[in-house]
């Protein structure tokens, strides 16, 4: 599932999956600006049929934490 999540993120940011390191965070690369961060969140919500809560987003700092959050929420 991790790969699927990274595919969605890479697709929205327009970067290669290989460039998405675990500690990459919004704002670290020009492609991941605030506008596209919102698009990333929306795409993840749609693809995995989940809904992020504000408290959860306040706890996400980098890619590994975002992937972990999606995995946790998308559990059947």
């Amino acid at each position, binding site marked *: 599932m991790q790969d699927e999540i990274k595919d969605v993120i890479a697709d929205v940011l*327009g970067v290669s999956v290989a460039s998405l390191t675990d500690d990459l*965070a*919004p*704002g*670290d690369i*020009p*492609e*991941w*600006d*605030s*506008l*596209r*961060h*919102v698009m990333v969140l929306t795409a993840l919500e749609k693809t995995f049929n989940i809904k992020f809560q*504000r408290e959860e*987003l*306040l*706890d*996400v*700092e980098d890619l590994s*934490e975002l992937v972990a959050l999606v995995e946790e929420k998308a559990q059947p």
Partner: protein
Amino acid sequence: MRTLEERIWENAARLPDKPAVKSGSRQATYRELTRRIAAAAQFYATLPGYSRGRAVLLAAGKQLEFLYAYFGAHLAGLIAVPLAEDTNPTRLAYVRETLKPFASIGFAPGMEGETLRLEWSTFASLDEVEATPDFPAPEAVADVLFTTGTTGAPKGVPLTFGNIAAAASQINAYIRNTEEDVELLALPISHSFGLGRVRCCLANGQTLILLGSFANVKRLFRLLREERVTGFSMVPASWALLRKLSGEALADFAGQLRYIEMGSAPFSADDKRHLAELFPTTRVTMHYGLTEASRSAFMEFHEDDRALASVGRASPNVDIVICDEQGHALPPGEEGEICIRGAHVTRGYLNVPNDATFYGDYFRTGDVGLLSQDGYLYLRSRLKELINVGGKKVAPQEVDEQILKVPGVKDCACVGVPDPDGMLGEVVKACVVKEPGAELTFEDIAAALSSRLEAYKIPTVWAWIDEVPRTQNGKTQRGLLK
């Protein structure tokens, strides 16, 4: 007036071990900042093609090296040209053609054109140099910033060392930030607002904390807490984003934040009132300004609560007049073009005669407004047809041009419409006429644009139309397409 560089050197003499700037896990004290700037200045002079008065392009990100290279360029007698890291190839080529720079720093490979390509890491590896440089003359050009022109082609705005020093003094005088303040900056520093914040903090001897983006709310709130941040800046879209991602958690820092500066896009009187309530003891300020005349008016949401629908009053040492079409000053209450005079105002656009830019020594903003009896400036409309996407200005013509290059598109006109998600203020709407029989989707067009335009310029609202409405003279009637 002392240049900003001179003030940084004075701060280094007075506060050598104080952190001047922090980015991620790295920092530079004022002493180290001056030594690294001096090292950058010496380094430029060793490069092929270097000579005083030439330009250097900088992909302005939140690296410490950007500051070394930017101020170092000034001390080496170069004109610094900060640009967004994701500047599109057409715009970059235009900038190169206009300025003939000798070097480009920090851009992706292949984007340097015929210039010498340099990496940020080079500036990190230079040995520190202890030197008291010859500071530049106030009338020399320090920076050229590019604004969105009405025809779609960007306009070069030269700013002298005197312009920059005057703007920083005026802004600090209004906001009342002091040496004790610690400021967090998440705005892009390729634009006038963010770059202005850098200058204001360093002129004052403050500590500046750089953060890549507002989107990283966890890191943002951690920094606010750990660094005991007292100053903050944002555009209305940043506030909308913070509210979406974190509710009103920023207000938990109301007791700690001494000042906030806002700007770059309209913000409603209700929103201003709401912020004033959330931050009862913070100086919550907002400016009206342009790259050409940085922060020409200011307001404070508590002090000016009787005029929240205005954009404030003239900044310290700035004159604002409203002019009629002949350039004559109009009395209070009458609508006309907003014109600005002050030591911060550019001396005129590159390669454009000044006749159309100024009325006497008053810069013509192209914005329509009026002044009230008590000096409040009310913005009525923009003469320029620009779309304001989250504080970044987009010329609809620039997007039209790129869409017209997509096979299957017969005609097109873009306009600004309110953001359906309520985040960005405005977004770009594209009205497209298809070639008969062409099989084309909006997704196809958006995909074709992704390598040609910055993300915020790509339309998010689309419509197929039969014909673009035009006047008899062929001017696109965009107002009919909103």
